């Protein structure tokens, strides 16, 4: 067989240029936010010695766990080249519906009074169902993910208000409160859960064929299909995982706050997208890592905490927080050196 010898011609100078050195650079981008995080820690320590206390750090991390789970969900969906705005309503509706199904009508429940032990399962199933329904509209009916999930954001929020009569739910069964309030080995359970899920996500998206297919679909759907990836099925699963993670985030938030607020999660989606984009996730799909997204969450959490410790007045904190996010986006754009996509 002469094949390989004859084909292996010396490389011609014009057409071939090894792109060596690209990967280390790409790897480096994953850690681009680490210096920013260290800087924020130093700034925080200088502003207030309380900042470095383990109580404060634990507090910051715990407050960020719900955001972190939403960002985890959104990052995977964005990498697959889709959108989900409805996550911020799922985080409210899923626990609200589950709780309303188990508590008595007197506590603003629906009166069904299902066994309280079912509440967690009901909550997670609600999240899955929302993700599946989004998938149905986006993949089967070929609707734009942006407008579908924007519609769902409003519908789901409206459902929550309708079910609860616009009331906050206080009579929460202990099983629902557990995950968001328990402490395992001296660290809140919600931090363990979020951390573990991020590790699972990083490994799944980095080292498993199905995880890599998410990148392939976001990068070039036609090419992914041609390679034998069942693109619709993968995207559908990704959307369902997104709903599931949002429902879990809802459980954690309910447990931490001890109630389901009527506006639970309202307005979170901007922060979710900001954390993902600051963390290097491309809105065009196919690019970014979950580790980067996690760094984005931590950066935003630290900024929030520092603003509070610095005594910025409550009336102004939102404007300043939003402005800092915009600055962070500009910096992320400048450091990546490419137009944001």
């Amino acid at each position: 067989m002469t094949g390989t010898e004859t084909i292996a011609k010396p490389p011609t100078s014009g057409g071939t240029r090894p792109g060596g050195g690209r990967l280390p650079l790409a790897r480096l981008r994953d850690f681009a936010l680490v210096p920013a995080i260290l800087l924020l820690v130093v700034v925080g320590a200088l502003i207030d010695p309380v900042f470095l206390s383990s109580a404060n750090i634990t507090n910051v991390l715990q407050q960020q766990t719900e955001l972190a789970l939403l960002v985890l969900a959104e990052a995977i969906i964005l990498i697959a080249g889709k959108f989900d705005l409805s996550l911020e309503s799922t985080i409210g509706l899923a626990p609200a519906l589950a709780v309303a199904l188990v508590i008595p009508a007197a506590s603003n429940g629906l009166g069904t009074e299902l066994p309280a032990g079912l509440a967690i399962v009901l909550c997670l199933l609600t999240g899955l169902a929302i993700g599946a329904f989004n998938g149905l509209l986006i993949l089967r009916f070929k609707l734009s993910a942006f407008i579908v999930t924007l519609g769902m954001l409003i519908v789901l929020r409206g459902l929550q208000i309708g079910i609860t009569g616009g009331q906050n739910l206080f009579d929460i069964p202990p099983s629902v409160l557990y995950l968001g309030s328990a402490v395992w080995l001296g660290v809140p359970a919600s931090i363990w859960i979020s951390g573990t899920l991020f590790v699972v996500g990083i490994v799944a998206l980095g080292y498993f064929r199905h995880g890599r297919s998410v990148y392939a679909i976001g990068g070039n759907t036609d090419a992914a299909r041609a390679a034998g990836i069942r693109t619709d099925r993968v995207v559908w699963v990704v959307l369902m995982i997104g709903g599931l993670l949002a429902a879990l985030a809802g459980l954690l938030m309910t447990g931490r706050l001890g109630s389901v607020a009527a506006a639970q999660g309202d307005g979170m989606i901007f922060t979710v997208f900001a954390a993902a984009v600051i963390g290097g996730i491309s809105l065009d799909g196919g690019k970014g890592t979950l580790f980067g997204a996690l760094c984005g969450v931590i950066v935003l959490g630290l900024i929030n905490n520092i603003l509070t410790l610095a005594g910025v007045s409550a009336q102004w904190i939102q404007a300043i927080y939003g402005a800092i996010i915009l600055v962070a986006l500009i910096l992320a754009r400048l450091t990546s050196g490419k137009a944001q996509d």
Partner: protein
Amino acid sequence: MTSQEQNAGSAAGIPAAEARDVSKRYGATVALHSAGIAVRAGETHALVGRNGAGKSTLVSILTGLQRPDGGEIRFDGAPAPALADRDAWRQRVACVYQKSTIIPTLTVAENLFLNRQSGRGLIDWRGLRRRAADLLAGYGVDVDPAALAGSLTVEQRQLVEIARALSFGARFIILDEPTAQLDAAAIDRLFDRMRELQSSGVTFLFISHHLQEVYEVCQRVTVLRDARHILTEPVEALSRDELVAAMTGETGRALAEGVSRPPVPATAPVVLDVRGLRLAGYYDGVDLTVRAGELVGLIGSGSSGKVALAETIAGLRRADAGTVTIAGSTPKPGQVPAAIAAGLGYLPQDRHREGLVPLLSVAENATMPIAGRLGPAGIIAPARQQATAERMIRTYDIKTDGPRQPVSDLSGGNAQKVVLARALANDPKALVMVSPTAGVDVRSKASLLGAVNEAAAGGAGVLVVSDELDDLRSCDRVLVMFHGEVIRDVPRGWTDADLVSAVEGVEQQ
């Protein structure tokens, strides 16, 4: 030689790939009407036809992406696998499409082993890169497996796709217009590689609009026209004129001669004057002049800087030094509106990216640069736009349902005519065109070049920037660029060999 044995064996025997009586309809449109093709094992078989003749449909049926309404597909004599069984299809046939099936955000290694990075369990990235390096080295493809696929050149990308196809075990490969985006040197390298692979038993189906290439690398040719199979012949038994006649259904004149034109008087005013233009990394010290009524060609390899030069003249790039004078005035460099105002018409290289807004109508696309003249105070008067567009459709022979049809519905040749109509819409004094006939079929090519000649006859100075010799045959003179400099000024009457050797810089070394 093994290939000859295989050829001899298969000539009498079973084709490597065969479509029999295949029909396909899309709604009211018949895309294929009991068409067929039989590709012998070990040959390179050309598939030619005008845009819309059914080539793409046949390819998508042969690769198992579409189900034919009637007829059957066979590989090595056996019926094709079920449509859902992608793995089985990939072991039999692979296609390198014009549109890349590489995922730009992933590495070359991952692209090569997409969806088969590992069996079950964790992906071994180091091992994956090693396997990719072995695979690429096996086919002599010098690409770093760790590079992002998006950073590859078109040529490298095609080689990676061919290597990937072969790695699935496919020995029948369809190349869909592989040369459309390559420069002359890269095309030669591709052909060398195809011949080598062919001698090791790989069968090719080669699709191209450049008939010269068909004669260069193919042994047999199949012609489709109007959704039907017209002929399958050995290429040596078919003259160029016969081939064109089979494609167009008429005995049209071949493009080979070009149009004879009266010489341009030396007194004609200079409409495009480029002096000492320099752009670091692209070209250096370029001088050129085009007179009114003159047709000047500009040829050079992909790295010669010719496209960057054209883009500079059009105001898309800003030169580091030097001047561009258009019809006596010097527009502000790096600004497209200034260049248009000075009297420049520009036909961009890639009509999909820079030429057209696909969802807008023919009328809107064609009248875009003259929208300001269609009504007062920025109002676009619909009736005037319509009338202008209808005039353009007649003048340039654009095949369309009417001015309201979206440009995305048009065939490649007709879309290109819209771009040309737009470039000529404001009666430019100087016209710069980059690859005006790229991806356009034979008949559209003739009418596009005819319109260019008419523009020149009407007094415009035209600069045709192209690798395609057919585009340059009518030119009064052809400038040759090499490594960023204009090295030759060739008057009419050149031979192909002459020009190509100048482009390759043969005389220089």
